[in-house]
């Protein structure tokens, strides 16, 4: 979890270079960050897989660590690179592999995406401060 304080909702694409460039600055804000998956698959075909990977890591308590890792090293996002990250984070690889392909994870990513669409997100990163 990045930061503490007022809630900041961020819709981001884990394969988006603008999101990667902005991520450190977003995390440095004095705010409690709520990440919302917004993979734009047509633009970044690998994006859905990265969001599934982050969500699966989150099921083992290491969501933001996986997000940090993906943004810090955008060129290494094939499956073997994801497995390296999983091992570096000390996660259960077998469970990760099952979780990232699960309907639960897919539904969570889709739910976030659709909430962004309904909220008028047209590009990433998109930041919202409730109230």
């Amino acid at each position, binding site marked *: 979890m990045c930061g503490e304080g007022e809630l900041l909702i961020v819709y981001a694409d884990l394969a988006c270079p603008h999101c990667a460039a902005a991520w450190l600055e977003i995390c440095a804000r004095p705010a409690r960050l709520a990440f919302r998956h917004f993979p*734009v*698959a*047509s*633009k970044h*075909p690998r994006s859905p897989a990265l969001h599934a990977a982050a969500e699966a890591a989150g099921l083992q308590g290491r969501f933001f660590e996986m997000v940090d890792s993906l943004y810090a090293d955008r060129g290494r996002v094939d499956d073997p690179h994801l497995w390296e990250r999983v091992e570096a984070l000390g996660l259960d690889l077998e469970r990760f592999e099952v979780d990232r392909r699960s309907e639960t994870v897919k539904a969570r990513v889709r739910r976030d*995406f659709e909430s962004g*669409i*309904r*909220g*008028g*997100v*047209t*590009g990433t990163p998109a930041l919202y401060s409730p109230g």
Partner: protein
Amino acid sequence: MIAAGEPAPDFTLRDQDGEKVSLTDYRGRKLLLVFYPLDFSPVCSDQLSIYQEVKPQIAEKGVELVGISVDHGFAHKAFQEKLGIDTPLLADFEPKGEVARAYGAYIEKAGHANRSLVLIDEEGTVEWVHESPTPLEIPGANVIFDALASVEA
């Protein structure tokens, strides 16, 4: 800008594959014309990418999506491939901007269309129009879904 209730001006333009596409080809189906300024511009790229992600949901509501800009079909083809989209892109190339002008969506000073959406019903009548205040403002997909809900009501 053309208004709801008016007949949609007919057109025949070439798409990204050089094939002729006419408004009358869509008779019997709803059509959403997406006028946008220029291929490969950052804002247009974001807009068409977002619409691609929700194209199945738009299609479920019986609406076809078509993009129109002043770019030539060769540019459209490359733009489609770059963005990974399959939305047909029509070349309002020569006479430049003629179709955009017919719909009131052309910015003479800029030499390209404004970012506008025109929903046309099955009989070729304009049902709904959205004109962005500036070419920099993308109408989100939520604007489209809200419009479709309002015309269904």
